[in-house]
Each structure stands twice: as C-alpha cells, then as structure tokens.
C-alpha cells in the first residue's frame, strides 16, 4: 500500500491538470459568429422521419416543418389557404377541380417542383393505400397535369375533397419514384434523413433517443426564416424539461403537463402559450351491440333521461379547474373549438346546466329509486342497480383525474361507478370487447369536420363508434353535409349534426384541454399561433411560426452556451474523488503504523 501513495498523488495531479485544461479549451469557443438556432424541448420521441409512416405527435411536426401541402391551413381559422398551390376552382358539378401552382418552386436539392410532384404524391397515397391519408381521396379521383403549374382533379362524384384541403404532404417524385409498388411495410421503413423537401427547413440529423435537427432549406420558395436551424431535444420527463427551460438549455418546451405549470413559478422570462387544443376529453356511453361482444351494458343508458341526469350531475368546470388547473375549457359538442369555422358553441341558455338537484328529480320522476336503501338507485324495469363500469385511459392527460371526480358527482345522484384506470393498450381491449358501460378517452380529428362526424355514424359500430350510438337523423345529416359543396350551406348542416349529438348524448364532451407550450420570452419573439392567437406556435397545422420567429433584439438567440456550469466544479469533483481515496487509505495506514 505504501508504494501506492506517490502514484496516487501523481494520478490526482494529472487528472486535476487535465480537468483544468479541458474547460478552458471547450468554453473558449466564441459564440459570436454562431448561427441562430431555436432549441425545442419535447418529451415525445420521434418514431419516424418518413411522412408515410407518421403516426405520433412529433412525426407530424417533423413532416409539417419539412413539407408543404397543396393548400395549407390558414393561421386564423384553419380554413384552406394558398401554399404550393394558389387555389383550386371547381367545375359547376364539383366533379372536376383545377388547382394552380406557384411558378418557380424548387425542391431543396434544386430540382423544380411541379404539378407532376403533386399528382405523384396523391397517386402514391392512393395506390399504396397509405392509411393516414387515403380517406382524403373519395370517389376514385384521377389527376392530370396539362402543364407544370396546373393540376386537374377529376372525381367520379361531386366532392369538396380538393379544397378541404387534403392533409397530404407533397413529396418529390424524383426521390420517391423508386419506392412505387413496394409493400406498405417497406414504404414505411424508408429512411428519410436528410430529406429532399420544399418547406423552410430540412431535417439533417436524428440521433435516436436524443433529438433531431433541422437546417434551413436554401431553396425555400417563401419568405426566408430569421433562424438558421431548429434543434429538438428529447427529455424523458417533464421536470427535467422544465429545468432545461428555466436554465436556458432550451428556448421553448412543447407539451407541458398542466399540473407542472406551478413549478415554473413566477419566472417573468417564461411565457405560457395555452393552446386551444385539437383534442377533447370524452365520456362515451355504451349502448351495446358491438359485433362479437357478449357484454350487456347497463340497459338504463338507453333512457335519455338517465343520460341527461348524468350530464347534469357532472361539474365540467370542476374538471377544468381541478384536473387541468384551468388550462382547458368546458366541453360541449363533438367538433372542438380548434376547428373554429365549424365548431358550434351551444348557447348558455340551451346547454344542459350543472344541476344535481334537477338530475336527482329527473331520476326520481323516471322511477329510478333506491329501493334497497344502499345509496344506489335501481332501474324500475329490471331492478338492476345503476352501476357503471367505466375504464379511463391513464395515457390521456386528465382522463383518470376526471374519472375520479365523476365517481363523486354521480354518487350524489345515486349512481355508482367502478372506475378502471387503464393504459391505452388495455383500453383497446375494453373497446374491442365492448365490455364497459362508459369510458373516458379522447377524440381528435382534422380541421375539417367530416371525419369527426363520420366516426359517430351508426355504421361505425364495431369500428370507430365504440359505444354503438345510433341516430338516423345524425346519419342523414352526415350524408347530406358530405355532398354540399358550398361551405356556408354545409356549415348549417354540420352544426345541426353537432346539435343532435349534443342533445341526444351519445357521450359527454367533458373538456377541451389546452396544449401547453412555454417559451423564453427573453430569447425569441414573433411567434404565430394557429388557429388564432391561442393556437399552436410550434409546427402543427403549418410551419408559419418558424418563419416569423426571431431572436429578441439584443439577445444572442440560442447561440450561447447551454449551461452556466463553472469549470471549477469538475476540478472540485476530481479533487474530492482523489482526495477521498487518498485520505481513507492514508489515515488508516498512519493508525496502523502507530499500532505497530
């Protein structure tokens, strides 16, 4: 042991000197000429960089940042607006649409972007039955490109599909032509980084499990962005992401949990963007009849008065306040407010009020009395207690929390609830087997209401309409809106369908939760929301915000260092480790020598 002492000292010395030398070299790098980069924190990993394999949150944001659609969603209300195409005109029978493209648009590799690329992208989706996009092309359309800037869309029946607009990214034919005819699985596996794109940024690197980066597209056709690149950093938990925002490692955090807003404290340099979200929290009732299911949901749910009583017993505002900490709005119809143009806001005086007393009376009047005095009402028709088996998705923010409140609300009107928190995987089991009386999950959809109405139609029992609600009037309105080409006329029908779904209560839209984005207002400014001021400021419906965002005057943007770690910490750490070893061994030895 004795012989080790000088060696140990030398080792400590070497490590210390190395530690001293390293920070000097690293931190000496000058950030002055560094490009301006926006750093985004997220807790959702990227699954695919391939637009045909996009499925979860950030897959879409990557595609939206890189690619254009023929028409984009307008910032104000998500209605169709010019993008690669300047507009689409229909023939009087709405079976032929002529879309005009901008001239001189180029792909990021310098190749021209023409109507042929648009037709190719649409055909690619249709021919390969790409599930996410194929429903945008009803009535077997064919596409013609008489010249580089004209796309003609011919459908076999009248349609407004071209103007919805189809949420389909236009990809370069000269890159993707090689993949024509491949199996869907192979197409989904095509790697796409770096990509050839038409949008303002192109993804240039993706380190799995850590993050991904975009650089500016030198050939972008629109207004040039103020930033040179965007870096997404992946955090595996919300707390870490919030700390990173506070200490300046990132400039904006995407998707904060409402419960953690408080931990941002009163930081004046952090602004929270409470986005009118594109999803809603839904309590669905089960009316039974799913193909292959032998579960018999509570028969009383077929009685509208029972559903009304449940609706009136639920304090939606309490869900908003307690579960979403005020970062949501109370729900009403099945087209959420993010679809600003189509959403029907039920007037306050027509809404079902929160009124447990009236709810109790409704049940009393219907003969649902607590005959055995156990606090639970019984159905007069069959004597069954009003008891609901209610799974709630633990993967949906707030679903279980809302469920817990609802258990209490319904207890007050003599209805008992067996709340079963379940992962989305397990929820799918319930949904597939139809083995529930009610459940809490979320719904989301396109800005256009067609899809959202579609999932509530009778024929969707066993597919999308989990609770098998059937309403002929609603079905008829769905069909009718499908064939109305004039948006204003269609709006009236769409709103009537929402009204029917609201008053017939296939389920209860509990809340429209917000999506929370928090950014450092001392670093970047000029964000644009979509839809509207309270919309998403990170690419969701379009990439406009990334074009307009710029460093705050006088700030270096994000080109500075990532954390203000003093170099001496490492020295202290190394000295502590070395010193600790040294002291433990040395003091022991001294004592032994004394003993000896």
């Amino acid at each position: 042991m004795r012989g080790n002492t000088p060696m140990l000292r030398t080792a400590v010395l070497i490590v210390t000197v190395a530690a001293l030398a390293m920070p000097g070299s690293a931190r000496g790098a000058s950030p002055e000429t560094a490009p301006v980069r926006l750093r985004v924190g997220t807790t959702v990993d990227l699954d695919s960089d391939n637009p045909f394999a996009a499925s979860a949150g950030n897959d879409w944001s990557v595609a939206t940042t890189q690619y254009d659609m023929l028409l984009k969603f307008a910032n104000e209300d998500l209605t169709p607006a010019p993008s690669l195409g300047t507009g689409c005109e229909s023939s009087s029978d709405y079976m032929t649409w002529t879309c005009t493209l901008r001239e001189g648009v180029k792909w990021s590799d310098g190749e021209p972007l023409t109507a042929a690329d648009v037709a190719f992208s649409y055909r690619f989706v249709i021919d390969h039955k790409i599930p996410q996009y194929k429903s945008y092309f009803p009535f077997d359309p064919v596409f013609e490109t008489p010249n580089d800037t004209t796309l003609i869309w011919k459908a076999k029946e009248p349609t407004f599909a071209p103007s919805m607009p189809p949420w389909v990214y236009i990809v370069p034919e000269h890159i993707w032509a090689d993949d024509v005819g491949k199996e869907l699985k192979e197409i989904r596996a095509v790697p796409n980084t770096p990509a050839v794109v038409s949008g303002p940024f192109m993804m240039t690197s993706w380190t799995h499990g850590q993050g991904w980066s975009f650089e500016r597209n030198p050939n972008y056709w629109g207004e040039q962005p103020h930033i040179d690149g965007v870096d997404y950093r992946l955090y595996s938990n919300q707390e870490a992401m919030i700390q990173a925002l506070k200490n300046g490692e990132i400039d904006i955090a995407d998707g904060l949990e409402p419960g953690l807003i408080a931990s941002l404290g009163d930081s004046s340099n952090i602004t929270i963007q409470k986005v009118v979200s594109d999803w809603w929290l839904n309590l669905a009732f089960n009316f039974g009849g799913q193909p292959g299911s032998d579960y018999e949901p509570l028969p009383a749910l077929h009685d509208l008065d029972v559903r009304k009583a449940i609706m009136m017993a639920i304090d939606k505002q309490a869900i908003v306040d307690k579960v979403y900490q005020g970062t949501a709005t109370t729900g009403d119809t099945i087209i959420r407010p993010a679809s600003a143009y189509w959403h029907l806001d039920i007037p306050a005086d027509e809404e079902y009020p929160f009124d447990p007393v009236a709810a109790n009376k409704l049940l009393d009047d219907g003969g649902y009395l607590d005959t055995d005095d156990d606090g639970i009402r019984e159905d007069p028709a069959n004597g069954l207690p009003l008891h609901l088996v209610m799974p709630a998705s633990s993967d949906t923010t707030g679903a279980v929390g809302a469920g817990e409140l609802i258990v209490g609300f319904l207890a007050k009107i003599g209805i008992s609830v067996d709340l079963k928190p379940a992962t989305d995987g397990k929820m799918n089991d319930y949904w597939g087997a139809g083995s529930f009386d009610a459940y809490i999950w979320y719904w989301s959809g396109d800005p256009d209401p067609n899809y959202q109405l579609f999932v509530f139609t009778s024929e969707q029992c066993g597919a999308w309409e989990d609770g098998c609600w059937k309403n002929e009037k609603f079905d008829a309105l769905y069909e009718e809106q499908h064939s109305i080409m004039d948006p204003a006329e269609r709006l009236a029908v769409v709103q009537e369908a929402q009204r029917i779904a609201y008053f017939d209560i296939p389920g209860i839209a509990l809340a429209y939760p917000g999506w929370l984005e928090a950014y450092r207002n001392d670093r970047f400014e000029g964000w644009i929301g979509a839809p509207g001021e309270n919309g998403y400021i990170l690419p969701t419906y379009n990439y406009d915000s990334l074009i307009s965002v710029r460093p705050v005057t006088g700030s270096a943007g994000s080109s500075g260092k990532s954390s203000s770690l003093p170099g001496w910490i490492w020295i202290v750490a190394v000295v502590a480790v070395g010193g600790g070893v040294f002291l433990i061994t040395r003091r022991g030895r001294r004592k032994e020598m004394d003993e000896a």
Partner: protein
Amino acid sequence: MGARRYVVKKVTHALATVLFILSFNFLLFRIMPGDPVGILVRSDRLTPAQVDELRTDLGLNLPLPRQYLHYVGQTVTGSLGESLRNSRPVSTMIFERLGPTALLVGLGTIFASLFGVLIGIKGGWNRGSRFDTSSQLGSLVLYAVPEGWLGMLLLLFFSGVLGWFPAGGFETGGLTGMSRVVDVLDHLFLPLLTLTLGYVGQYSIVMRSSMIDTTHEEYVMSARAKGVPERMVRRNHVVPNAFLPTFTLIFLSFGFVLGGAVVIETIFSWPGLGLLTYDSIGSLDYPVIQGVFLLGSLAVIVANLFADMTYGYLDPRIRET
C-alpha cells in the same frame, strides 16, 4: 479433475439459466395487459381489416407456441427482430444505446465499488471508531434512499436552482473534439453522481461486515499471535478473504451494467438501455423489451459465471468442494 468438474457444472448451470430466461422473457411480456397493435390503431386510423393484416404481418395472431418457436429460432440465429413501433432492427437500437449505458453505469459501478470497498475496509477494521459509525450511518442512508428521489433532488438543485449542469440528455449536439468530450462530461456528471451515491452504500456495508467476520477467523488470530504487524495482517490475511463476497457483488453489478439503470437514465434523459427499456415498455414494443431483457439477463449470467470461475481461482477451497 475437481477444477474441470467445477467449470463444467457452472457452465451447464449458466446454459440452463439462459434457456429458462429465453422462455420466461417470451411469456412475461405476453401476459402483460394490452395489445401493441391496439396502440397503433388509434393513431394510424386503420380499419379493422388493416389491423388484422398488421397483426399477421407482425406475427401476433399466430398461436403462442408458434410465436415462441419463431422467437427462439430467430434469437438463436442472432436476430432480435424489429421494433413494432418504428420497424428498426432491435439489435441496432440496442447497439446505439450501449455506449451511453456503459459509460454511465460502468463508471458508476467502478466509483461506487471503489469507494464502497475502501470505506468498508476502513470501517470494518476500525469497528466502532468515529469513522466507522459515521460511514455506516451514511452508507445505510444512501442504501435506503430511492435512487430516483435522490436523482430528482440533485437535478432540481444543481440544474434547476444553480443551473450548473444540463437538465438531461447525453450531449448538446453539434460539437466536436474536446468540446464534445467536456459537453458529454457535463451531461454525465449528475447521473454519475446519483448512481455512485446510490450504490456506494451496499458495497461498503457488505465489505464492512465481511471484514468484521474475517477478523475473528482463527488464521487471523494466529497471524497476530505470531507477531505479524497489524498492517500486514490486514493486507495479507483479512482483506483478501473479506473481499470475496464483495467481489461477487461487484461482478454481478457489472452484469447489470448492460441492463442499464432504468430509473436514473429516465430521470436524466440519458439515452441508454435503461431508458430504451422504459420507453419500449410504455409502447408495448415486445421485440425491443425482449431484446433488452435478454441482453441484460445474459450479461448477468456471464458475469456470474465469470465471478464463479475467478472465485474458484481466488479461493481454492471452492474448487475442492
């Protein structure tokens, strides 16, 4: 003769364990609730027919025994399959994560065992001294503290309050050379500290009690009776014998290195195997979970086997029995 039998016995045990792990690994994840395709369905808007197709594609609608045979066959030929989530080869995904995990858990185990053993030797030798009582208390506290909680505290304080260290991740990106090394070290510091503090306690406790046991052995007494200086008694007679149990523990821990440190990696967004495990469990990505678990189990078995072998070398008594 004895030695060969010992080796053969240990290797056979190890192989049997591997076979058991392989089967257990397969079954465990199939009795978990939920359905991996179900998760894809909601986000991908597939029709029931397409869902069925996807299930066939992924081999999920085959009867379990056939899935099992397929899995074993595939694993034996060295393929771990593809991720259900993004179709990437599982082996590639695991390979990407090996470096960060080896760096964090490897260094952490080295530091923790080094300090733990030294503290244990000193405490056990000077039983009842001030150092012993305080280090034992410290070890017990560190051993008892959940590493996740400790990590979260360190993160909130050093990253949130002081802003000295990054809040997570492996590196800032875009850096090269020495700057990159320093940047990675910056990111490594807090998880490494957490891991070291979290594991130092167990080593010191085991080493200490082993030291105390050994000091009462007759051969130690006779060494002392012969007048061997205390320093020599400790170095030549006590420490080598007391070290044996700790040695196994350290080796086992190195086996666990490949499993990653799930909790710590998750708290610090450290892109290692532990975080991969956490993420793939969340998305029911069977092939990935199976791959990571298999690798982790194999590493432990191999490390254990190696410890057993070396043990036999270090302690001839074991070979003889």
